[in-house]
């Protein structure tokens, strides 16, 4: 069926998407690279000049940069840990026979459908606020001093909020994968005398490996650039305690108007993401082919 004619028609049909995405990848990225070599501040228009690698050395020697790298990784790994472990546990639970399974499923999925700014503000004000938040009320109920989450443990608070949003995603995907596990296999294992634990290790976990890979891949893409949650809760602070790389570049660009410095930061973020993506793409390439 693939005659020369249909093939060129196919090319024509694919062309718009490819060209658009190509332009989207190349044009702004090329501009970022160009800007990153300029001394260019929006507050001083017309003063642009070539700056060599000074933006990069400025960014790479800034203590805030290392803090941001650390925070970025802490958010990705922290949220991945909570959501994958919690997701497996929840999926196993929801896979059991129970009354009203559909409704529980709906309740569990909900946080994922909430826009990030709403999730973050609700947690910040109505739960984590040291005066009026529910957590403060619970603490006082037990005679404890209310804990100021966002001031004393800002990074952990951000991780908690983001994990709450992504736990449903992991659960939903792992549950879907779990439900495709052959019931007869489980029974066979049970009849052979395998306990619940060894059934989990040797049967369920291998079956879930592909879904877990997918969860890690997709979450990592999104978690590397967590932004709204930080903006509305801690604004990166106190100091830079909860600033990740995305937020650092945003602050450099839109709060300090330092186009050159922010561009250098953006390029560094792209390089880091590529290093991570390189490994992830190999992983998903393998699982998608299987």
């Amino acid at each position, binding site marked *: *069926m*693939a005659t020369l004619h249909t093939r060129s028609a*196919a090319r024509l*049909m*694919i062309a*718009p*998407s490819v060209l658009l995405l190509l332009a989207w990848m190349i*044009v*702004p990225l090329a*501009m*970022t690279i160009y800007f990153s070599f300029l001394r260019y501040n929006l507050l001083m228009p017309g003063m642009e000049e070539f700056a060599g690698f000074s933006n990069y050395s400025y960014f790479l020697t800034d203590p805030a940069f290392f803090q941001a790298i650390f925070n970025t990784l802490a958010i990705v790994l922290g949220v991945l840990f909570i959501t994958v472990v919690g997701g497996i546990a*929840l999926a196993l*639970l929801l896979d059991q026979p*129970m009354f009203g399974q559909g409704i*529980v499923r709906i309740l*569990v*999925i*909900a946080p994922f*459908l909430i*826009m*990030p*700014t*709403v999730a973050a*503000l*609700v947690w910040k*004000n*109505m739960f984590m606020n040291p005066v009026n938040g*529910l957590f403060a*009320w619970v603490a*006082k109920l037990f005679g404890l001093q209310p804990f100021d989450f966002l001031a004393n443990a800002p990074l952990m608070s951000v991780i908690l909020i983001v994990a709450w949003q992504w736990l*449903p*995603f992991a659960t*939903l*995907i792992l549950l*879907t994968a779990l439900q495709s596990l052959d019931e007869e296999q489980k*029974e066979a294992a049970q009849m052979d005398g395998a306990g619940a634990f060894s059934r989990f290790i040797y049967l369920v976990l291998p079956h879930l490996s*592909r*879904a877990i890979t*997918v969860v890690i891949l997709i979450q990592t*893409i999104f978690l*590397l*650039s967590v*932004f*709204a949650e930080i*903006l*509305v809760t801690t604004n990166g602070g106190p100091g830079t305690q909860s600033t990740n790389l995305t937020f650092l570049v*945003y602050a450099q*660009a*839109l709060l300090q108007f330092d*186009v050159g410095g922010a*561009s250098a930061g*953006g390029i560094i*973020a*792209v390089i880091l*993401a590529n290093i991570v*993506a390189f490994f*992830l*793409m190999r992983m*998903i390439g393998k699982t*998608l082919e299987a």
Partner: protein
Amino acid sequence: MARNVSTQRKIVVTVVAWTIGILIFFPILWTFLTSFKTEAEAIASPPSLLFFDWTTENYHEVQSRSDYFRHFMNSVVVSFGSTLIGLIIAIPSAWAMAFSPTKRTKDVLMWMLSTKMMPSVGVLVPMYLLFRNTGLLDTRTGLVIVLTLINLPIIIWMLYTYFKEIPGEILEAARMDGASLSKEIIYVLTPMAIPGIASTLLLNIILAWNEAFWTLNLSAAKAAPLTAFIASYSSPEGLFYAKLSAASTMAIAPILILGWFSQKQLVRGLTFGAVK
């Protein structure tokens, strides 16, 4: 052998699962309830769960004070606009890749996926400047353009996995029976493609509705969709929990309902068809 599940065990599982489910859902429930309280009741100690004077005053106030409806319309226009344009661009591409694949199709798909991995912040500066210089900053058009581009790879992937499942033999059978190309498209292809397209549409509207990096950075007062509107509550004046809750409830309700209807498609779409 059917597994003999004792009722007792089922009840225990039910209690545990419901408890955890309600705990996870609680922040949303709490927001919903608080939206019907007065500001004083919203921060009352001890907090009241259900027994308070229900009022809809907050909803009126949010609308009259900050023109909620305009932001809502911005969200609708931006999410539907970007999704529809994305579909128009993506359907032919996904179609071609699914039905006349070449050796490079897989590479093209993987490359498209890889564009999603470029962190948005890497192109924030030029996009901001481009938008500022072309007058697209803080316009619906600008947001539609950006959201179309960032979600295009997901749309193509999702459509591709759906189209791939349409058996090619059916087309050949229709052709053998003498169906013309237009008949083939209207009577054979469209009915089979519509469920996939609808699922893609739904998922993408959810993603675009909740997108909060570009909408926060590229919009201000005029074109701000709900994500940015809600963010303006982060530096509040006075008592605001009840109003924040009312605004939040209205912002999340439509998508919550859409999402609950499309759970299955959600999994498939978000995993690029890797988990079904």
